[in-house]
C-alpha cells in the first residue's frame, strides 16, 4: 500500500467525503464480489454493497489504522451480506428455482447450472476468493489484503476451490467437449 492510498484512507476516516467517494469508486466492485460470493444474487449483492457503504461512512471512526480500512470495509460488507443471507434462509426457497431444473436446457446452460450449484457448495471463503479473482481479475496480493490471508493460504484456497469445481463438473465438461 503506497502512502497516497494510505493518506486517502486516513482522510476518509477523518470525514473527507471526497476521499470516501474515491474509495467507493475503487472498492465497490471488490465489495460486490464479496457480497455476491455469499449471496449468489446480483440485486441483493448490490443492495448489500450500498448498505455497507452507508454503514461504513457512519461508523468510519471505529477504524484506528488507516491501512486496515479496505479489510474493514470487506468485513462490513460480509456481515451485511450474512444478515441478508440469514433472513433469506428463514423464508423457503422460491419454487421457480426448482422449476428451471425441469425445463429443457442446452449443454452450456446445464454447465452453468451445475457450476452455480458447485459454487454454492464451496466454503464461503473459497467462494469469496474465486469471485474476487474472476470478477475483478485481482492479483493474489490484493485478494490477500482484502480477505486478510497469507499468500500460501490463498494459493491453497484457490487451488482447492478450483480442484473441487473441476471434480464436480468433470462429467459436464466431458459432455461439453
Amino acid at each position, binding site marked *: 500500500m503506497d502512502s497516497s492510498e494510505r493518506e486517502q484512507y486516513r482522510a476518509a476516516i477523518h470525514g473527507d467525503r471526497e476521499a470516501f467517494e474515491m474509495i467507493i469508486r475503487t472498492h465497490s466492485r471488490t465489495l460486490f464480489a464479496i457480497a455476491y460470493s455469499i449471496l449468489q444474487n446480483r440485486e441483493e449483492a448490490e443492495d448489500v454493497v450500498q448498505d455497507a457503504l452507508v454503514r461504513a461512512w457512519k461508523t468510519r471512526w471505529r477504524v484506528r489504522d488507516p491501512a486496515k480500512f479496505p479489510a474493514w470495509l470487506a468485513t462490513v460488507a460480509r456481515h451485511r451480506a450474512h444478515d441478508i443471507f440469514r433472513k433469506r434462509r428463514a423464508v423457503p426457497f422460491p419454487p421457480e428455482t426448482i422449476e428451471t431444473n425441469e425445463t429443457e436446457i442446452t449443454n452450456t446452460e446445464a454447465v452453468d447450472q451445475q457450476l452455480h450449484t458447485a459454487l454454492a457448495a464451496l466454503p464461503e471463503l473459497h467462494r469469496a476468493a474465486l469471485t474476487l479473482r474472476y470478477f475483478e481479475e485481482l492479483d493474489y496480493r490484493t485478494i490477500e489484503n482484502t480477505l486478510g490471508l497469507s499468500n500460501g493460504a490463498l494459493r491453497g484456497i484457490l487451488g482447492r476451490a478450483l480442484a473441487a469445481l473441476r471434480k464436480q463438473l468433470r462429467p459436464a*465438461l466431458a459432455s461439453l467437449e
Partner: protein
Amino acid sequence: MATIHNEIDDWLAADVHGDLSKDERSALHAHLVECATCRKANEENKVMNKILEETLAQEKPDPAFEQRMLAGFRGRIPQRSGLARLLVDLMRLRPVQITAVAAILLALVQVGRVITGERSTIPRSREYYANEKFFRQQPSQVAPGIGLAGGLDKSDELAAGRSRDLSLQAPPPSLPASRSDFHENAKMPATIVAPAKAAQPEAAEMLGRSASPENLARVEVAEQKPADASAPVLANRKLIRNATVQLEIVSFDDALQRITAFANEEHGYVATTSSEKQANGKLRGEVVVKVLPEKLDRFLQKLRGLGELKNQTLGTEDVTKGYFDTDARLKNARVMEQRLIDMLKTRTGKVADLLQVEKELGRVREEIEKMQGDLQYWDSQVQFATVTVSLAEKDMEEPAAFLLKERGQLSLYAPDVEKIYNEAKALASPKVQITNAQLNRDYSGRVSATMSVLIAPEESDAVISRVKGLGRVENFQMQTQRIAQGGNGMSENAKTKRDKVELNITISREEQEQALQQTSLRIRTSAVDEKAKELRTLAEKQGGRVRNSTFNRDPDGRELANVWLRVPMKNYFALMQSLNSLGKVENVSVQRQDRTGTQIDEASAPADISIQVYSQGNIISHESGLLATLRRTLTQSAGAIMWSLRMIGVAVAFLAPWAIAIVAVVWIVRRIAQKRRSKS
C-alpha cells in the same frame, strides 16, 4: 518433485492465475512433463478456468455500477451545507485541531477560575505593581542627589558658621582632631554629588579611592552596611545617633575596663556607669559611652567581642529642622538684643519706658541663652553618639539558696481512737504546732480523727517517731521538695535550708484495718450448731473475736454455719491447731497481703479466718437408681436428636437459595441452547 505433485492443485491454480514466479513456473512445467496425472489435471484446470471466466463474467457488475453506488451513497448521506462543510473541512487540519483543543482547555481553566472565585487578572496587576515600583524607585534614586546638590551649599555654610561659633564657646577635649575630619567629610560629598546618579556602591568606591586611611576604614563600614553608605553624605545634617547593646559577660569589672579602653581608642569617653549586685553575687549594670557618630559602627563591632550579644538596637533621630529653626530664631533674637541695647544707650524717653526696655532685654537675653543651650545640647548630642551598654554576668538566674520542704502523711490504727487523739494533742509545744484537729464519729459508732501538725525541723524526727508509737502504722509517706530561691536551675554554691515539716495524721479504729492474712476453711462434722458455739469459745480463748456468723439448715437435713473470726497474728497458729478438735478440716486456703516497704508489727497484725462448719445430710436423693438413669438417658438422647434436627434445618436454609439459583441458571442455559439448535 514430490511437493509439487502433492500440492498440484495449488500450483495449477496459481499458474492459471499468473501468481507463479519464473522459477516456480519452470519447476511446475518440468513436473508436468514427467507426470501424466498432473498433466491431465492441468488440462482440466485450464478448461475450468476458462468456464469460470466466461460464466462469472456474466455475473460481473455492469460498468455503471460504481456510478450507481455513488449516486445511492449521495442520496442516502446528503452533503452538508456550505458552512458546516467548511467547518468540517477546517477541523480536518492538524493546526486547527490543536488550536481547538487548546481553546477548549483554556475555556475549562477559565470556568474553573470562575467556579473557585480566583481572580483572573492577577498576572496583569502584578506587572502593574512592578512597573509602579520601578517608576517610584527611579525618582527616589535621583532626588537625594539633586536635593543634596541644592541644599548642601547652604547647610554646609551654616554648619561651618555654627561650628566656628561653637569652637569659640566650648570646645570639648577631643574636638579639634575630629572637627577637621568632620569638615572633610562634609565637603567630600559635595564633590561627589554631581555624578550622584551613579549607584550607591559606586559612590562608596569613589570615597574609597580618595585614599586617606580614615576613609578606607569608612568604606569598610559602608560595605558592611550598604544602607548606611549615605550616612557620610548626610553628615552635615543634624542627626542624633544612639545605640543600645545588651551583653552577657563573664566578669562585669573586666568588661567595664575593656569598654573604657575601646572608648578611648575611638576617641570617645565613658559617660556613666552603674552596677547592681544580685542576691546570688552576680553583677548587673549599665555603661553609657559617647563616641563619634562615624566611629559608632566600629565601636559596636568591638563591643561584640566582649561577650554574648543578647540584643542590639541602633537609632537615628533627625533634628536638622529644629536645629536650624532655633538657629535662625537665635539670630533674630541677637538682632533684637542689639536694638534694645542701642535703645538703652541713647537713653531717650521716660524712665518707665527704659525700665520696660530693660525688662524686655532681660527676657530676650534669657531666650537667647535658652536657645544657645538647646543648640549646645544638640551639638553635643550630634557630636557624639550615645551607646548604652547593658551588662549582665553569666548565670544571672542561678538561685541564691534552696529550701527543703517536707510534707508527711501518717495513718494510724488504734483500738481507742479518742485516747490516741488526745495523746497526740498533748504533744503540742512551741516547736510542735497543731494547725488542725478533728474527731469524727458517724452514726454506726465508727470513730476517726485527722490532725495537721507543723513541726520545727530539728524536732521533726523525734516527734514523728513518738506519734508512730501511739498506734499501729498503716501508712507513712514523706515528701520532700527542694525549692530554689532567687532564681531557678542548679547551683553549686547555694546553701540548702530545712523548712518546717508539715505532718498530716489520720487515726482510725483497728476494726477498719485490712487483715494481713485471710484464711478460709471447711470443717465437716455431725453437730453443726454445737461445734459453732465451741468454735466461738476457742476463738475467745486465743484473744480473737467473732465478727460475723450465720447458720442455716436445708430440707435435706444438711446444716451449714459460717463464722468469721479475727485473731492477732501471734495467736493464729494456736487457733488453727485447736480447730482440729472440732472435726475434719478441709479446703484450707490462705491468702496473705504483704505490704512491702512498710514496717508492720506482725505479731499484733490481725488475721481473718472464715470457717464453714457443715454436716452431710443423710437422705438419699431421688435422682438415682435404674429408672432415674433410664429417664435421664432418654431425655438426653431426645435433646440430642432435636439439636441435630435444628442443625440440619440451618444447613438447609443456608444452602437452599444457592441450589435454587444454580438449578435456575442451568435450566435457562439449556433453554437457550435448545432454541439455538432448533434455529440453526
